[in-house]
């Protein structure tokens, strides 16, 4: 099944209403090298989509492009009806499309609580005039944010770590911190680049549960992951990327039956 036939399955209007993200013919070259070539796929509301492919297939580049960290050479990215192709990364993130990085990117010398607080959007105390105006202008909002962050910390079982420096957390806890930070942004769609990297096997189930919490909150997910077991358990639909192109998409059983996919990835 190719992306083209998938797109033609539903009628245009209802599909648009359903659609969270449209990646339309996106292409990126570095020098003469084509890293991403005419990639087209969609993510619907309420979906968890997997992105798999061999090393160097372009999964991370593709995610960075969708999040606005790397500009697309051509093509179009539409998020919640807005063409965000040329938007800067921070603006896309504020709009609800957030990328969580492959490597842990915690703010080491900020406490876990501060890591969460800093992520919250639309903070009054972050305006430039806070440098000279009294704190009472933002204190109420700050208290509410602390309360919200505490709830998230409790849900993730890290309340006891709230006042520890983030740099002192374990690899798995840093992963959770990354997810918590993203949650504080109240995102609509989260791009997760290898959420299980650096997580010890005993902890994977915990991270998976937390990812399912995202869905319960109405947040859609795109997950690039090497662990196919994880992808199979979490994702409604899987997109296979190889050599910068979409090779196929469908559920894992369909993909296993697809000789092109098997050749490109599952066996090789």
């Amino acid at each position, binding site marked *: 099944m190719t992306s083209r036939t998938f797109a033609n399955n539903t009628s245009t209007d209802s599909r648009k209403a*359903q659609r969270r993200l449209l990646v339309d013919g996106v292409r990126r070259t570095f020098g003469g090298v084509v890293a991403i070539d005419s990639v087209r796929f969609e993510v*619907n*509301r*309420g979906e968890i989509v997997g992105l798999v492919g061999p090393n160097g297939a372009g999964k991370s580049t593709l995610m960075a492009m969708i*999040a606005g*960290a790397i500009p697309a050479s051509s093509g179009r990215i539409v998020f919640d009806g807005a063409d965000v192709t040329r938007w800067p*990364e*921070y*603006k896309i*993130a*504020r709009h609800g499309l*957030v990328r969580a*990085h492959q490597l842990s*990117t*915690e*703010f*080491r*010398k*900020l*406490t876990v*609580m*501060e*890591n969460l*607080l*800093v*992520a919250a*959007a639309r903070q*009054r*105390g*972050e305006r*430039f005039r*806070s*440098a*000279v*105006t009294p*704190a009472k202008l*933002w204190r109420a*909002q*700050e*208290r*509410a*944010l*602390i*309360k*919200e962050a*505490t*709830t998230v910390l409790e849900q993730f079982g890290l*309340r006891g770590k*709230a*006042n520890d*420096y983030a740099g002192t957390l374990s690899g798995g806890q840093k992963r959770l911190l990354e997810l918590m930070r*993203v949650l504080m*942004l*109240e995102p*609509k769609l989260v791009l997760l680049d290898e959420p299980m990297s650096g997580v010890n096997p005993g902890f994977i189930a915990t991270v998976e549960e937390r990812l399912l919490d995202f*869905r*319960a*909150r*109405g*947040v859609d997910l795109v997950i690039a992951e090497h662990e196919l077991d994880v992808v199979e358990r979490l994702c409604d639909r899987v997109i296979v990327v190889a050599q910068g192109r979409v090779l196929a998409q469908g559920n894992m059983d369909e993909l296993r039956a697809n000789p092109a996919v098997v050749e490109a990835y599952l066996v090789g």
Partner: protein
Amino acid sequence: MTYYVTTILVYFGVDALAIWGLNVQYGLCGLYNFAFILFQSLGAYTAAVLTLGPASGNGGYQHYVLGASLPFPLPLIAAGLAGAGLGIVLGLLTRRVGADLMAVLTFVVSVMAVLVVSAVIPLFNGPAGLSSVPAPLQSTFHISYSSYPWFFVGVVAVVCAIALISVRALTNSPLGRAMRAIRENEKACSALGKNVAGLKLFAFAYGGALIGVSGALLVMFIGAWSPGSWEVIETLSAFAAIIIGGTGNNYGVVAGVFVTQIFLTELTRFLPQFSATNLIGSMQWIVIGVLTLAFMWFRPRGIFPERKRVIELDRLDPSESRSHDLGSSTAGRSQEAQKSQ
């Protein structure tokens, strides 16, 4: 003796002011501004030409641009604005580079500026520099020469107090928190929806304004400023003060200033003459260098490390909630999600 004490107090205040500026840039936001002394000099020159009056006055023996004699607080404010402007220029110049290249670029600009100011005499009177800068408010209030230094100490104290209140407000605000997050990881900050470029420019400008004002106060006190007074080593010693005092801690960096600028300078002044004559003069810099290295090795967070901001979760009032409450918005979203499935 009065002169000695007041001079030390003024220098201490001026250095504290400048170091708060650099601490906002480097300590808080992680910006390697190696053009520190350029900010101070720009502030000094700006204030000087705006108090000296037209260049043709005084027999016209000095050449400079923009000659004017503005009443007291205005040259100070102009120096602050000039510092902020320079901050924005350097910020834009280093917008796309990492910390290492930012250090190199700002350093190069600083060195180039000394050469340009020395070579282009009509700008700020070249290598001879500007002198006879009038002391502010002395003639207005008819303050005697003997009591004027104390008056100036008061002026510096007032400016420092205002600066400290503002710097503290910034450091403790979510804005300061976002800057610290940039210092820790710029890319992650951008991915979390922070306008990193804007915040960095703001830190550059804000810190630049403080450093500019410090230069203005200094030139008003000494009455002269020339390219010889802004050697690159001043920038290095400012960084030394921050590293020794405690990067990111507004009080720590003042302690650092005290150690590097006041204590060591005065200490070497009283050293007995030994070995080559020039060695004593260089002693301050040698000791600062060794001390900085020692701190980087053994106490990298300085004498007074940045305070950990602990939030007592158990003391929170449970009745308050955020205006766009997470509970209700997520409930709404999950309904939406269910409908679509």
